[in-house]
């Protein structure tokens, strides 16, 4: 394990809407931290020895870092688009590697078996070819033209549709999903997975959404996403090993897993190995 490469990244540490002066104790990469609001209502994050950590507030969440971030938090242009509803889904803790949580988010082949009759259903199990690349200019992993048949793709969908997805990994423990938007075919719904690494094998997951949906209640939108993520949780807690294996050999990818292959390659290239297992044990 090496923390160095990932230590300068931004990580979600709480919902901005739930900040209070008393503060909430949590952890970041093994270090106890406190997330609070200061006298002016601004977010303040303190590290284990009382040192003040870098802070930014974006996409409904407070972000911090144990190191010195070299760049601003990745941008999600849709977060500034009018007409979208922004949904704080809330935290869910998972006993798994933060990298495993992201990799699962990038996968569609499990939909029929884990999100049965919602995001997938037998016999529609085939994953057709899609495009994957590491975009060198922005240094992000992208998968595009991912198509999958879904019985109930979103709260705003009324029946089965073939949904198109685009996946983006802009930071080692964050992913942004762009998904067919049933009420607005020309736009994409944005669903994100922001993962706070508490330890190498423990994480707090903060999903967030920016959707075009004027009819569904906010609570229904939250519950839909919580349903999906809680279905994944029991999978994530039962993968062996807990850490994400980066060396080939321990796990067998197929064509359907090209996004995960690219994600693992990108992690390895940058030495983003907090939560990863490098040598088969």
């Amino acid at each position, binding site marked *: 394990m090496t923390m160095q490469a990932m230590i300068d990244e931004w990580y979600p540490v709480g919902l901005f809407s739930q900040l209070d002066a008393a503060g909430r104790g949590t952890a970041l990469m093994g270090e106890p931290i406190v997330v609070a609001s200061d006298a002016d209502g601004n977010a303040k994050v303190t590290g284990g020895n009382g040192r003040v950590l870098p802070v930014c507030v974006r996409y409904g969440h407070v972000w911090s870092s144990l190191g010195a971030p070299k760049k601003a938090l990745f941008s999600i242009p849709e977060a500034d688009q009018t007409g979208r509803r922004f949904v704080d889904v809330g935290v869910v803790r998972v006993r798994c590697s933060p990298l495993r949580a992201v990799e699962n988010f990038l996968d569609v*082949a*499990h939909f*029929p*078996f*884990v999100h049965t009759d919602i995001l997938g259903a*037998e016999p529609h*199990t*085939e*994953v057709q070819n899609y495009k994957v690349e590491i975009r060198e200019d922005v240094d992000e992993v992208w998968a595009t033209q991912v198509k999958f048949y879904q019985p109930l793709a979103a709260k705003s969908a009324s029946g089965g549709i073939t949904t198109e997805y685009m996946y983006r990994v802009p930071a080692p423990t964050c992913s942004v999903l762009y998904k067919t938007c049933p009420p607005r075919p020309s736009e994409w719904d944005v669903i994100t997975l922001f993962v706070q690494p508490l330890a190498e094998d423990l994480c707090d997951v903060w999903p967030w959404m920016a959707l075009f949906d004027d009819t569904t209640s906010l609570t229904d939108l939250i519950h839909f996403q919580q349903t999906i993520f809680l279905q994944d949780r*029991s*999978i994530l807690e*039962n*993968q*062996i*090993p807990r850490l994400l*294996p980066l060396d080939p050999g*321990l*796990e*067998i*990818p*197929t*064509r*359907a897993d090209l996004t995960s292959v690219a994600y693992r390659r990108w992690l390895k290239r940058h030495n983003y190995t907090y939560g990863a297992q490098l040598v088969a044990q």
Partner: protein
Amino acid sequence: MHPDTTGSWTPVALSADLPAGTVIPARIPAGSIALWRSESGRPAASANRCPHRGMSLSHGFVRGEALSCIYHGWSYAQAGNCLRIPAHPGLTPPQAIRVKTYPVEETGGVIWVAMGEPSANPPKFEGFVALRSLMAEAGIAAIEAAAGAKASPAGLVEPAESTGTICLLLSAQEDRQTLLHVLLKGEAGTAARIAASRAAESLRRKAEDLQKKGIAQ
């Protein structure tokens, strides 16, 4: 790896606890296994890990003569070879994709799993019927102390003070846990079987107590 246990049999579960078309988790000295029974009734044991994404196979499901992983539906034959990858319905999975399997035998209502190639059949306990299995947070020494009797080389303990009807077949687990298979000497009626189940619970309480007090190592 486990020279003392290679080729030897471990009693992993009772036959009655593994109906046709189901999979359960179990443990042998080599590690965690997925123990399953096909619809036609044949038991099988494999490593409890799908080689695709490491998901535990005991969370999976049995259809016909195959065990499938709950994560992506990859399915495996009793011989361990991958039969189907649902994401690629047209693909015949390469022979290299397989799970490690272990020999399984059933005798006297007990399912036994071997590591390596066993040189003999699993032990047979003539005249015993299986009642239930229970897990104790106690090592074998504590259970022997509670029972007032030593385990036989085959792992069978005949408690000294019991009503004279129950026997315990022991299987050491991780972290000083022991799986107890409760066997009865001969057929018994409902009331006697319920009494035997309660006697086994009492014995477990006693063994765990001894374990906690550190009387047994």
